[in-house]
């Protein structure tokens, strides 16, 4: 049961991911991305990581992708952008990336299938409590660093945005 | 005498000079000049008051990185003291020579000069190999700035070449130092960069030869010797006057000093086996440097190549492995410091007045500036090796020492004296004698400032030539330490 659920969610994730990178309209692509993220959240849930699944939905789908959408809307791309996308996305451009991706898939597949014993995920739940313990225990330094990273991103984003705003004001 | 204090004084004076530019643009010159004059007096005072026990004029020990056996060990023996004195004196001369030449960013300029000098003093007194390497780099980088910022038309090429040559060869030395320390550590179990500790390192012949080559290459690049000399003509030609004076007068001596202090003593056997190559390189430098000097048409370039020839004598002297050769090499180092520094000052003065170094655009300058002519004549004669002036003493002692070792190479080196006459007189002829060039504008002659610097150098050369005993007796005592039978 869980196994089939997993592959249903995984298939949706793959299909929608593929759709996300091939759409001409950025908004549509982002919606497909949200679908991918949601299916991944389902998989997380299946794997016994409900906390991760929740964060996936809340922060990824809910915050980050929405941020994308805001920017897309702000830039006001419209129909001409779609036309341009169509010109850029020529069939020939696929060839090399596809070959390389295929090659990498085959190589990794060989590497993965090489293992002898069957590794099966039991699906035992690891709840938020353990995650929290672990985060603020052995990983406390990582948390601090992540905080610094976020601060840096904050400052950087502010800097980039402020210039934009000031220049607009001058006009 | 506290060497560390002297080094700190120079470093601090550099900062003060940099800052003082804000008060008055000319103030950095005064700061630097005062510092150098004081330091010179300090050295003279130390010399007059004589060495302590063990023949050292100064000895300092401070712990630095004890974990790796790295300490600040500064010692000044006769050789070091003499070279430090030369450094400080030429520092003052260099400052005087660039008094009006440098007009932009004088503060930073003098800062660089003072820091180079601090590095040089460190190099001459460090008895810890790590500290030595540290100072070796300290003197390199300000020098790079001096060439790269205040140099002439081709400065970026020249400064980069200078930097790459010295840096790469310096890295070779670093590898050799680390290897030496490591080998000593693995046999004796003591991790130490101390010179005197490392003297006792027992090395295999082949290993010793390799390590010796590491040091040797670094030092003959700095010296420089054929075939690693090609950075020098470019660097000298492009450097500002003060830079050339320091380069020729002092920085080249660090190479010679390194050979005397480290190559010969740390690897006595390997160096002794190596003598024929060292001497042959020296002879090649003498002949090739002299020959190249003749073929140049640029005043400074000619003098630069002549430096190569003179430093060849140092190499020949050191690798004769006897007291005569060694003493000759030391005297040559000092005398070359004076004579070539003066010639570079002259080149700088000419460039300041005529805006060219090309001798085809000079000619007959004696008529316009007889003092400059006479002074140039004096130093050309000195560098040609006229008896009674310092260079002759050095070169003669070198030849005398080398003759005991190998007759053929000595004959070749002696031919270098003829070549010296050829290029020296051709320099004189093309710049100051001959038909006065009508295109040359009226130029002012040397005035008090430049003349006083020149007189100091002239007196020093005559003193060295007429009574070299002061210098000779100072190094006499340390000859056994340098692996040379007294």
């Amino acid at each position, binding site marked *: 049961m869980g196994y089939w659920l997993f592959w249903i969610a995984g298939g949706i994730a793959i299909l929608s991911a593929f759709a996300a*990178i091939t759409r001409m309209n950025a908004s549509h692509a982002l919606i497909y*991305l949200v679908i991918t993220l949601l299916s991944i959240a389902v998989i997380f849930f299946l*794997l016994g990581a409900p906390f991760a699944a929740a964060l996936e939905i809340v922060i990824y789908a809910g915050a980050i992708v929405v941020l994308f959408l805001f920017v897309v809307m702000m830039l006001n791309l419209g129909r001409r952008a779609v036309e341009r996308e169509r010109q850029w996305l020529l069939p020939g451009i696929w060839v090399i990336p596809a070959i390389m991706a295929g090659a990498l898939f085959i190589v990794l597949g060989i590497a993965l299938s090489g293992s002898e014993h069957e590794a099966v995920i039991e699906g035992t739940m690891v709840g938020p409590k353990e995650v929290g313990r672990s985060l603020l225990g052995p990983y406390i330094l990582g948390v601090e660093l992540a905080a610094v990273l976020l601060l840096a991103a904050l400052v950087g984003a502010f800097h980039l945005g402020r210039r934009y705003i000031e220049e607009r004001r001058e006009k | 005498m506290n060497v560390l204090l002297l080094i700190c004084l120079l470093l601090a004076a550099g900062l003060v000079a940099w800052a003082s530019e804000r008060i008055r643009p000319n103030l950095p010159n005064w700061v630097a000049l005062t510092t150098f004059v004081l330091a010179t007096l300090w050295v003279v005072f130390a010399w007059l008051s004589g060495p302590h026990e063990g023949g050292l004029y100064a000895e300092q020990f401070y712990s630095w990185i004890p974990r790796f056996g790295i300490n600040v060990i500064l010692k000044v023996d006769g050789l070091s003291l003499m070279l430090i004195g030369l450094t400080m004196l030429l520092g003052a001369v260099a400052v005087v020579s660039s008094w009006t030449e440098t007009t932009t960013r004088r503060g930073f300029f003098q800062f660089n000069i003072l820091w180079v000098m601090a590095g040089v003093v460190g190099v001459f007194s460090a008895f810890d190999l790590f500290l030595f390497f540290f100072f070796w780099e300290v003197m390199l980088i300000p020098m790079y700035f001096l060439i790269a910022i205040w140099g002439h038309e081709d400065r970026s090429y020249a400064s980069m070449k200078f930097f790459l040559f010295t840096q790469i060869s310096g890295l070779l030395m670093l590898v050799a130092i680390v290897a030496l320390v490591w080998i000593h550590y693995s046999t004796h179990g003591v991790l130490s960069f101390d010179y005197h500790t490392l003297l006792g390192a027992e090395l295999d012949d082949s290993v010793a030869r390799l390590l010796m080559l590491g040091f040797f290459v670094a030092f003959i690049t700095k010296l420089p010797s054929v075939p690693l000399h090609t950075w020098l003509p470019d660097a000298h030609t492009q450097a500002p006057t003060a830079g050339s004076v320091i380069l020729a007068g002092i920085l080249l001596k660090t190479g010679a000093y390194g050979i005397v202090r480290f190559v010969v003593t740390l690897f006595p056997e390997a160096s002794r086996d190596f003598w024929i190559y060292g001497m042959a390189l020296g002879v090649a430098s003498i002949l090739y440097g002299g020959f190249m000097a003749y073929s140049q048409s640029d005043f400074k370039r000619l003098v630069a190549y002549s430096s190569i020839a003179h430093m060849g004598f140092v190499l020949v002297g050191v690798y004769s492995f006897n007291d005569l050769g060694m003493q000759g090499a030391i005297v040559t180092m000092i005398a070359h410091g004076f004579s070539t520094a003066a010639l570079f000052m002259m080149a700088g003065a000419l460039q300041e007045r005529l805006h060219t170094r090309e001798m085809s655009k000079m000619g007959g300058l004696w008529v316009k500036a007889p003092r400059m002519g006479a002074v140039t004549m004096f130093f050309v004669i000195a560098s040609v090796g006229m008896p009674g002036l310092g260079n002759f003493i050095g070169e003669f002692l070198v030849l005398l020492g080398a003759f005991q070792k190998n007759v053929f190479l000595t004959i070749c080196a002696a031919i270098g004296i003829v070549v010296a006459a050829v290029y020296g007189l051709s320099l004189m002829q093309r710049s100051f004698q001959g038909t006065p060039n009508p295109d040359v504008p009226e130029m002012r002659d040397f005035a008090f400032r430049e003349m006083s610097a020149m007189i100091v150098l002239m007196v020093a050369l005559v003193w060295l030539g007429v009574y070299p005993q002061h210098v000779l007796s100072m190094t006499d005592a340390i000859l056994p330490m340098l692996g040379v039978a007294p």
Partner: protein
Amino acid sequence: MEGPLGIPLEHVLYLAITLFLIGVVGILIRRNVIFILLSLELMMNASALAFVAAGAYWQEADGQVMFMFILALAAAEVAVALGLVVQLARRFRTLDIDAASEMTG
């Protein structure tokens, strides 16, 4: 969740690889910055999936901790990257990433 789920670890990893490669292909074929960033998000999710799967297999929290870090990273990246996108759009009047190819060696 109770009981044996029975998902082989390899399968989850195959899924992660597939998603990752889709992201890579996305980066390589698109010229629009927005799509490139989007592909980047995909790749990050793929790796997050691999982490979480591994954590689940060992029944430890570390996989999820890594996911948290990836999340923080993604948030930071998106914040800066979108700022850059806005600048790019303003300066070059296009979202073509190849327009901003001035930083050549």
